[in-house]
């Protein structure tokens, strides 16, 4: 038996990992990243002459559970057409029976890597608002992300924000079903036959219903520090938009105090997540404005009823803050209100004060 050097072992690893794209329109370029259940490769779509990201399962799963999950993710992405959500191009099964899908290749940085290039507080808040937009859109379309975190947010070279990795998404409701029967949804078989026309290698896709929740009650999926307490407790049936509101609150905390937020994500405990003090950025001794700290704390309230009811509400409070208006999460005293009004109308107030001072000086000079 031939001895294999370390280098050969690594080459064999790559050979075994690489998706077999023979017979497809794709040409493999390089490995990009690895996620919970699959790897992402950079490939070229030779038919269209463009680069795509190709996500594929790491191992063939005998039960078909992972393949179903990947397909479900693909179909969820397909229903979420939004500039802030990475568009899916294709889905199929390779000759080695591994399920894959291709999506837009996003050239950019993850939010956690991008943050050092966004210094000012207003810029960070505007970045956060752009993160809220696709999430709010997904909620309207009946989809919860359930794994929002800086690592799953990409910022493109022109500042565009993309929410990635919808592998843990949960379907809350199907808006097409509730809207009307006028435009019937394609049946699963129709979807599959549609996909099959684009799959020269193996048109057979495992049947999967994207509307069916794939996670059993009691199963914990998510990322510590960004998971809502009810999610960390595995209360899958209780989850609604407010679970993503919690995660967005944690992302806001990360934007405000990156170091403190990183510390808060170390302990994977729902107890930590439920600690209101941990949600407050100023708890870390930072110079975060109180109103923003309150917004953060409200979004990350341990009790879902204490949070913003929707992402739009959270984003609206942020807009108010940026516009110098009162935020719903922070009841102001008289002094606070005056200070905010002064900050908002600083120029006008200074002009008026200057004018009054001039008048006083003029009056005093006339009396002499």
């Amino acid at each position, binding site marked *: *038996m031939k001895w*294999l050097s370390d280098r050969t*072992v690594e080459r064999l690893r790559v050979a*075994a990992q690489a998706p*077999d794209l*023979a017979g497809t329109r794709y040409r493999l370029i390089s490995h990009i990243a690895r996620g919970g259940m699959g790897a992402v490769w950079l490939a070229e779509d030779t038919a269209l002459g463009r680069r795509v990201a190709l996500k594929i399962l*790491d*191992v063939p*799963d005998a039960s078909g559970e992972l393949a179903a999950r990947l397909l479900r993710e693909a179909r969820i992405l397909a229903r979420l057409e939004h500039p802030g959500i990475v568009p899916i191009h294709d889905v199929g099964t390779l000759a080695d029976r591994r399920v894959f899908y291709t999506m837009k290749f996003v050239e950019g940085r993850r939010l956690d890597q991008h943050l050092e290039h966004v210094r000012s507080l207003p810029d960070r808040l505007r970045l956060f608002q752009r993160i809220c937009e696709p999430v709010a859109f997904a909620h309207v379309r009946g989809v919860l992300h359930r794994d929002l975190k800086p690592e799953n947010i990409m910022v493109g070279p022109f500042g565009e924000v993309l929410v990635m990795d919808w592998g843990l998404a949960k379907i809350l409701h199907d808006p097409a079903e509730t809207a009307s029967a006028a435009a019937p949804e394609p049946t699963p078989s129709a979807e599959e036959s549609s996909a099959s026309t684009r799959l020269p290698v193996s048109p057979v896709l495992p049947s999967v219903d994207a509307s069916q929740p794939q996670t059993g009650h009691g199963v914990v999926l998510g990322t510590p520090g960004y998971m809502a307490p009810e999610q960390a407790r595995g209360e899958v049936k209780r989850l609604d938009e407010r679970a993503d509101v919690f995660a967005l609150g944690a992302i806001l905390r990360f934007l405000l105090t990156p170091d403190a937020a990183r510390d808060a994500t170390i302990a994977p405990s729902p107890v930590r997540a439920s600690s209101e003090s941990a949600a407050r950025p100023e708890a870390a001794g930072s110079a975060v404005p109180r109103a923003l700290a309150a917004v953060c704390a409200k979004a990350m309230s341990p009790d879902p009823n204490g949070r913003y009811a929707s992402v739009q509400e959270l984003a609206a409070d942020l807009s108010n803050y940026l516009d110098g208006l009162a935020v719903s999460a922070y009841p102001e005293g008289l002094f606070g209100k005056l200070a905010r009004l002064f900050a908002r109308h600083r120029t006008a107030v200074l002009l008026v004060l200057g004018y009054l001072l001039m008048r006083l000086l003029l009056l005093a000079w006339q009396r002499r």
Partner: protein
Amino acid sequence: MSDDTQIGGPSGRFPPTRWSAIVAARGDDPAERTRAFETIVAAYWKPVYKYIRARWGKTNEDAKDLTQEFFARVMEKGFLDSYDPAKSRLRTFLRTCVDGFVANQDKAARRIKRGGDAVLMSLDFQTAEGELARSEPPAPGTMEEFFEKEWIRNLFSLALERLRAECEARGKAIHFRLFELYDLEGERKSRLTYEHLAREFGLAVTDITNHLAFARREFRRITLATLREMTANEEEFRREARTLLGVDPE
């Protein structure tokens, strides 16, 4: 191959995809138990031998005896009965068993046993010793990684031999040869291109890429099938597959 181990080595016999040596080794069928044992020995004897040499600093003669005796114990004493895949991986379990076994061995007793009626397995220690000499000696404190690395190396070697045998049996020896040239012999890769191979073998470039894709696909399938034999259940298989394919499951 003729001078390599005769136990559990590559042969024309390819187990069904879902067959698990761990499950079979704990079963009641003596024939299946023997077959399972052979499979486990084939996958682990070299890593165990090298580990004993590196971790315990044993001479090659002592390491040979300890390896032989360790696997004899695994078979006779039912070591695997106490293995729980929910608690650890098989290789972690076996490595821990090796540590306990070597630590408790009495040299004199071992000598007696060596001269006794223990059935010795035919293992090619000379090759293993040569391989050990070609490797970088592991740094202290990295013995776990060393064992894992040797396990992966051995598993890939087994899979490669199976791939070679399968390709030859199916009249696709050229596929394996291309795979060997392009993917294995890395030193040549920098100057080896599809066009070069196409000229050398008198084939079209598309044939080269198709043949290589076939060989890679089969290598992956055989590697995973080999791995599946070494795992007790689907979950452990997935975890190990991730490790083998370069993913840290932790």
